[in-house]
């Protein structure tokens, strides 16, 4: 046979194959949705959610001065749009508790002697205590603080007395505390000091690893249960199974149980690796984290069961899992600061269990928070789990066709 004839034959088969694949693709609605939907989702979410100028970080104000000047300063802070004044606190301790529970991302501390120091030309310092578990937020707060300090220096000139420049001195190196410091006097009358909390070195792994626990659980738990059910259907073993006296709830629970163990093993593995490789701290109690995981893992497993009902093939199950996985990655605060997202994106984020689990994981691991202070997050995950459980029970059927 000539080379040309062989090439021709081969080309014919290739075209036939390509044609067949194309027809299959066009007839598979889910594949089409996958092809179109994922890039659209990505575009929309990346476009909105990756917003590196962090704005509207929720802030708590501890105004110890309580003067006209301090109120004006607070107004100036708010005018930068970097902060959103969410609440005011009576003491630093109270404000730091809010920081710990992630109710606020930054605490503004105005010293009691603000007016006095300013008028005496000794310079005053406003402290911004930033939650540095998320380095992006911290960086944004620092940038906004520096910018505002500069602006205030210009605006506040009238308040500064002549002697101020004569009293100019250097800032002491290696400060560890915050708040007013007696000897702070410099050209700028008001200094904004940003104190990174919880993650003083601003290391990304410290921020990422606790989040990764949740992300990995989301992906594997959901997908593995979904695949485990769909595989039965695909291989025909489901038909044997449903003809036995086994109840559907038994099938569901039996499917889910091994993964409950797998999930906790995964948590331990990620934490151990994080601690060994990146020195990620474990400040809170591991038992508290286990409580969080014990609610989060079943939520993901039941979601996997829900996915398994409409999926006919394992491939379809993977595709459907992706539709949930992508928003979880992008809108939960795992990759991008939650506060920086537009409000509608935050609404979606609040629905996702990963958002709440991230707050628990970061709170417990990085801030040493107890699960007791994170019950709201736990309840949100629990509510999600109940809804998916109800859906799974409704859709999981022992019939075929």
């Amino acid at each position, binding site marked *: 046979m000539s080379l040309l004839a062989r090439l021709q034959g081969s080309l014919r088969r290739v075209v036939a194959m390509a044609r067949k694949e194309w027809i299959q693709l066009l007839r598979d609605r889910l594949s089409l949705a996958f092809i179109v939907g994922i890039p659209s989702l990505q575009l929309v979410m990346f476009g909105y959610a990756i917003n590196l100028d962090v704005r509207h970080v929720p802030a708590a104000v501890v105004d110890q001065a309580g003067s006209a000047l301090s109120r004006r300063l607070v107004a100036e802070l708010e005018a930068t749009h970097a902060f959103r004044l969410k609440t005011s606190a009576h003491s630093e301790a109270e404000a730091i508790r809010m920081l710990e529970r992630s109710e606020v991302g930054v605490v503004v501390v105005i010293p009691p002697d603000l007016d006095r120091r300013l008028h005496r030309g000794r310079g005053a310092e406003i402290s911004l205590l930033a939650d540095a578990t998320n380095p992006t937020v911290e960086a944004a707060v620092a940038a906004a603080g520096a910018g505002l300090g500069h602006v205030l220096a210009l605006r506040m000139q009238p308040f500064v007395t002549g002697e101020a420049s004569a009293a100019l001195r250097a800032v002491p190196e290696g400060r560890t505390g915050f708040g007013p410091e007696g000897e702070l006097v410099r050209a700028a009358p008001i200094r904004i000091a940003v104190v990174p909390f919880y993650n003083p070195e601003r290391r990304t792994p410290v921020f990422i690893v606790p989040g990764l626990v949740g992300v990995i659980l989301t992906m594997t738990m959901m997908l593995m249960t979904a695949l485990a059910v769909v595989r039965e259907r695909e291989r025909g073993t489901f*038909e044997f199974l449903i003809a036995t006296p086994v109840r559907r709830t038994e099938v569901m629970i039996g499917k889910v149980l091994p993964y409950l163990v797998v999930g906790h093993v995964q948590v331990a593995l990620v934490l151990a690796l994080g601690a060994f490789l990146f020195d990620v701290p474990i400040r809170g109690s591991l038992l508290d984290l286990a409580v969080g995981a014990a609610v989060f893992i079943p939520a993901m497993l039941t979601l996997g069961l829900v996915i398994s009902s409409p999926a006919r093939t394992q491939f379809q199950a993977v595709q459907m899992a992706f539709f949930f996985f992508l928003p979880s990655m992008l809108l939960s605060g795992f990759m991008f600061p939650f506060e920086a997202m537009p409000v509608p994106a935050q609404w979606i984020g609040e629905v996702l269990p990963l958002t709440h689990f991230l707050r628990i994981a970061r709170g417990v691991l990085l801030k040493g928070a107890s699960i007791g202070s994170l019950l709201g997050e736990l309840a949100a995950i629990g509510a999600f789990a109940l809804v998916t459980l109800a859906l799974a029970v409704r859709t999981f059927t022992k019939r075929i066709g």
Partner: protein
Amino acid sequence: MSASAPAVIETSGLTRRFGDQLAVDHVDLAVRRGEIFGCLGPNGSGKSTLMRMLLGLLEPTEGSARVLGFEIPRDAERLRPAVGYMTQRFSLYEELTVAENLHFAAQIFGLARRRRHARVDAVLSESGLDRYRAVRAGALSGGFKQRLALAAAIVHEPRLLVLDEPTAGVDPQSRREFWERLFRLAAGGATILVSTHYMDEAVRCHRLCMLRDGRRAAVGTPAELTGALAGRIVEVRVERIDEAIAVLATAPEVASITQLGATAHVLLAPGGAPAPEAALALRRRLEAQGFPAVTTAPGTAALEDVFVALLRGERLDGRREGDS
């Protein structure tokens, strides 16, 4: 088995629609206790759909069924412990070993530990799977997979066994052994509903139901079914058999021809002359065309002839359509 034995399966007007296609169309059946009841029909004639409805795996669109006294699909869950089901496709877990699969089946059917071990050991040795107990099911050959599937279907000693084309793709020796096991099970009191494509297997059933396009086309013992074609078979022997068949095919009295080596097995059209006369007519026709040394003789009908007649649209049931 006797005609007065209580019915294990009773259906009336059982119907299943998929979209606007009728997969099973008003089927009435009565399967008696202890019989091997065969379901015969071409692909897509509704055998699997019928079985799945009887097992409560598919909702009937219309009609009703009672299986072992349980109303289906309402009481399907209560029926399950008494039924064994062997699906058309191998439906055990390929990652599990032979013994693990059987223990799984026994556990899921709720056998207590001691009985479970006894039953698993029993079915392992009965099926000749003892040597393979630690082999992964996925590594078994087709014949052994089939043995395993049957073993798993009977590990809980069901009263009714539903087998959907259990011997498809299995060698003749394995099929023989398989059927010997079925007869032993039936002798032990089990009722067996089995679908098949193989005529040699269909002949071995106590009774048969032939399905065509989802409808019950005929029900009876193999002898009753072939008996309906008595006097309609002619065997023709002649040289140049293929040319002779081409000639015979044009004869008005011929319904269909099956070539069996050097013989043409002719099914006569219904309502024509009896076989001896037709045989003579066919011989004359061939001789007129110049075929030498033609011998023709009336023959006996095989199940395959019944099948062919049904595919041609004949009804051999003795009942008219619409009867219940």
